[in-house]
């Protein structure tokens, strides 16, 4: 049912000819590059400002994993929906959220996508089919099944891509979601972004499994696959049949995508270089970096040249810097706004919102 090879840095080219890739035009290919580069610069800029104490709480960087969000989301249509965990900046930018609203959210500003109420872990853009950004490990997995359920209920041809980490597979809610998805044929595709660690714990120390984590799908009679997440081509090629089955037959899947994060679990993770060797990190950066891999492919294909890539990087960096200025200049929410966005009925001033006491300050 699955090709159990991962981390093969060479395999990328063979997927260029896959039907889903072979007709891509230049702009689209460059668009993927730009999308990945924007994620990286956004986060590097965010990191810099985090260190300058412009923000608080957690900051889980996606750097190293960019091809997963960009590659998978590139296949999504109008009725495909996205939900993920707290490492959510990459998906947010990939679905089309602006750096400004995202950066302002990190700065805790009223102009943030969640008005400064959600922070790094809670980016949302329902208008772009993006349902967050969720902080409790595994907690988003039943929601993903629910988005898929709603699509089917409404008779729409769509799917939900529900992302989770390699550590999240041991949460009960995920298991319950798998059974529901398989039992009822819900068009949800669980995408395990396997970056080999849950905080400081390696996959082998947190999970018992046969060949891989996705293979647990067998226990529910579900489709699955395991593949390398460093090349946009491969990701698209491997996702496509599962997306088709979800669209056509409402079939769920589990896809495990091998990837890597360069930074610590979150910025506050002082141990980031203790539980992994310097060599491991550098090998990844040198040989498997998704942006470099794609850049090389595009240069090889003659789609663009190194200078174009540099220009795209410069533009992304400028955009990120500008978003930080925007964020910095934006106003904070007012203390009085703390109790806004709690109850729909209160916010909208409906009859139901005006009946009875909703808040108990005092």
């Amino acid at each position: 049912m699955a090709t159990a090879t991962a981390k093969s840095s060479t395999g990328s080219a063979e997927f260029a000819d896959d039907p889903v890739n072979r007709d891509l035009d230049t702009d689209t290919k460059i668009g993927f590059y730009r999308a990945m580069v924007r994620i990286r610069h956004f986060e590097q800029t965010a990191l810099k400002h985090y260190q300058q104490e412009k923000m608080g709480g957690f900051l889980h960087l996606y750097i190293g994993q960019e091809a997963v969000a960009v590659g998978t989301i590139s296949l999504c249509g109008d009725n495909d929906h996205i939900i993920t965990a707290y490492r959510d900046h990459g998906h947010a930018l990939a679905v089309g959220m602006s750096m400004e609203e995202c950066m302002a959210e990190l700065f805790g500003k009223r102009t943030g996508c969640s008005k400064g109420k959600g922070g790094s872990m809670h980016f949302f853009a329902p208008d772009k089919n993006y349902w967050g950004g969720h902080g409790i490990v595994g907690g988003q997995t039943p929601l993903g099944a629910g988005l898929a359920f709603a699509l089917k209920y409404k008779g729409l041809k769509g799917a939900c891509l529900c992302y989770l980490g390699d550590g999240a597979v041991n949460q009960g809610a995920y298991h319950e979601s798998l059974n529901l998805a398989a039992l009822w044929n819900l068009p949800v595709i669980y995408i395990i972004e396997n970056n080999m660690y849950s905080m400081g714990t390696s996959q082998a120390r947190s999970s018992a499994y046969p060949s891989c984590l996705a293979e647990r799908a067998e226990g529910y009679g579900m489709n699955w696959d395991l593949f390398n997440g460093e090349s946009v081509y491969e990701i698209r090629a491997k996702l496509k049949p599962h997306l088709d089955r979800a669209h056509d037959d409402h079939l769920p899947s589990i896809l495990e995508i091998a990837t890597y994060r360069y930074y610590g679990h979150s910025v506050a993770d002082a141990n980031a270089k203790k539980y992994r060797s310097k060599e491991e990190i550098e090998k990844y950066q040198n040989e498997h970096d998704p942006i470099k891999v794609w850049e090389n492919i595009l240069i090889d294909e003659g789609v663009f040249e190194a200078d174009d890539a540099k220009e795209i990087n410069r533009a992304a960096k400028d955009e990120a810097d500008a978003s930080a200025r925007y964020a910095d200049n934006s106003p904070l929410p007012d203390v009085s706004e703390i109790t806004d966005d709690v109850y729909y009925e209160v916010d909208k001033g409906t009859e139901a919102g005006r009946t009875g006491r909703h808040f108990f300050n005092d």
Partner: protein
Amino acid sequence: MRTITYREAIREALAEEIERDENVFLIGEEVAQYNGAYKVTEGLWKKYGDKRVIDAPISEAGFLGMGIGASMLGLRPVMELMFWSFCYVAMDQLMNNASSVRYMSGGLIHCPIVVRGPANGGTNVGATHSHTPENIFANMPGLKVVCPATPYDAKGLMKSAIRDNDPVYVMESTVLYGQTGEVPDNDEIEGGELIVPLGVADVKRQGDDITLVAHGRAVLTCLEAAAILADEHDIEAEVVDLRSIRPLDQDTILESVRKTGRAIVVEENKPFCGIGAQIAYLIQHEAFDDLDAPVLRLSSIDAPAIYSPPVEKKQLPYPSQIVDKALSIC
């Protein structure tokens, strides 16, 4: 007016809302083909079919979370917990996702779900099956909690809950399912529908001497106690039925207490940080100078629910206890 059971009243509300709005569907363990563990949903699967009435596996975190996710896309799931006591296996979905997705998204996402089922002791099902978590959920801003005591309220509140655009947790009672009460036919009502808004308490009995505040089955216990107080002690108790815990109709409570000067909060909740504590706090805070005595409360005896049937009866508030408490301050 017709007399129907509390169970039938809820069923009517569910059926009417299923018919009114195609986004409304029911889901829960045994709610469809089995007709519901307590027969609340009897006949609905037969009538409305697989799409609108769905049997779920024993996966509360899974199917409640699924409903929350579906509600974000505009569906309006009404989800049965066979017992509210089983909420603990789904607590993260109920306490985090449902309560806060609106907040954390700065108001972009709504979660118009209803979770309903019985939450009560008194039926000898032991500690794990007799929880009354209204205080726990009402503690969390973003959630609404409703506890109907009569068939009339059960129907009217359920319809409001389903139409509400916030998550509403309706806590019913297996002890009350068979109780009957007057519920008007729709054609007897102006507007053609029975709606009881959330956040409006109901004075179930008028009186000048003491206020009894209660919710759920404790309301009936208070009414019995009030009858004894009137008959045997010439004390007229006013019984305020909260109906909804959050939003809370504070004004009706205070109005009553300002009149009577005395209050007892009666609940089947456990006492520590229960509903009684909150209401007592409120009363002394808002009506301190009107109080002739401390606010008292009567809760279930502070232990896990005992099984032994005759003894469990005594673990929950009963009328003579209320009478004694009332006499101690009247």
